[in-house]
């Protein structure tokens, strides 16, 4: 009897202990947009697009549903003017990197995001971290990671590991919401281990 009962968009839902708000919503078929979430990976809470409004003991706050644990009697609203506004800004900011990414275009249509609102950036990476985390958590190869921080942060393959592991795996490729990951891999391959690429 560990069930946690609460409400999402007026619907009574139940979650078991340890579940997040997002997991509960997905189980119940309630849509919350996500970018950095993946069922096989630990919650990351980086893209912030799954932000929702939570009312708890009379107080309303904004939380990120992929890391917020299900709690008894809370009232979750997956959409509100404020939530929609924030999601719209986040999508617009990411479209400055990847204006043609299908996932972003889909969300842009829902939230009325306007592409080209912000000055473009030359990198397609939206820093969802799916590739980095998949490689570490599922493939357990640690062949790529984040380097630098702040606005200079980017993903990078570690040539010594990538040369040995990546050709046989490449499981991270389809995860990338943009085409950036493949580009980085091809570049690393060309610069650091061109011989093994020829052999394959």
């Amino acid at each position: 009897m560990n069930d946690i009962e609460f409400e999402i968009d007026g619907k009574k839902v139940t979650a078991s202990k340890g579940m997040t708000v997002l997991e509960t919503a997905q189980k119940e078929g309630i849509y919350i947009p996500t970018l950095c979430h993946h069922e096989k990976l630990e919650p990351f809470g980086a893209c912030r697009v799954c932000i929702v409004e939570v009312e708890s003991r009379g107080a309303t706050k904004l939380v990120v549903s992929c890391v917020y644990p299900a709690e008894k009697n809370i009232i979750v609203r997956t959409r509100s003017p404020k939530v929609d506004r924030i999601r719209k800004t986040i999508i617009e900011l990411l479209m400055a990197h990847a204006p043609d990414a299908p996932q972003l275009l889909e969300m842009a249509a829902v939230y009325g995001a306007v592409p080209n609102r912000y000055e473009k950036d030359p990198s397609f990476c939206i820093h969802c971290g799916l590739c980095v985390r998949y490689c570490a958590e599922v493939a357990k190869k640690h062949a790529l990671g984040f380097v630098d921080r702040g606005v200079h942060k980017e993903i990078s393959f570690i040539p010594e590991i990538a040369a040995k592991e990546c050709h046989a795996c490449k499981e991270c490729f389809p995860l990338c919401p943009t085409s950036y990951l493949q580009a980085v891999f091809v570049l690393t391959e060309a610069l650091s281990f061109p011989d093994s690429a020829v052999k394959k």
Partner: protein
Amino acid sequence: MRDIIFTIGGGIPNGKKFKAVQTGGPSGGCIPEDKLDLPVGFDELTRAGSMMGSGGMIAMDEDTCMVDVARYFISFLTDESCGKCVPCREGLRQMHRILTNITKGQGKQGDIELLEELAETAVEASLCALGKSAPNPFLSTLKYFREEYEAHITEKRCPALSCKELISFYIDPEKCKACGTCRKACPASAINGDKKIIHIIDQDKCTKCGTCFEVCPTKFGAVTKLSGVPVPAPIPEDQRTIKKKSKENE
């Protein structure tokens, strides 16, 4: 706060006017003169749009451009951000860009609204307190010095005469005594003149370093900064020679 700045700190040097005090480190905010009688307390500073933060204070005089202050602190914070979440990493990146454009005179209508939107997203949706407080330098300067933002954007004018792209240096021919100090000091050789020939700044060569403004003897005060108005045309050659009479005045 007035006590700390004017009594303990000795006030603003060189007879300049006090403009604002920035408290709490980079993600704190700027507090204008009319709020100076606030006690320095956690709640009081937070209510005024700043914070206690590290407890540091930076007092600024009338020569400081508040848009540039916001740009400076946001620029610091883009490097401090860890880069994990979107509102902070991307929001600050864009805020810094827009603020830089404004200080360069490339601000557009709607920039303030865009900045406000980015600030809201960062405050509400960032992962940690750095992102949540990072827009403070912008929000507090907009709250108390909105007219400076508007002057930059609509009139291409920097009221504090500080943003290099928006100011020009100009030698007032009425005041110039052709002493040659500025001409010798100019690192860009942009000043034309000679003994008894009124000096003129070549605006195309001028790098706006401000050296001439600093070295012009206070008793002359001939070098001025202009912003938002066109630089007057240089005086005709035949009027450039300083006549005996003005020399006697010296």
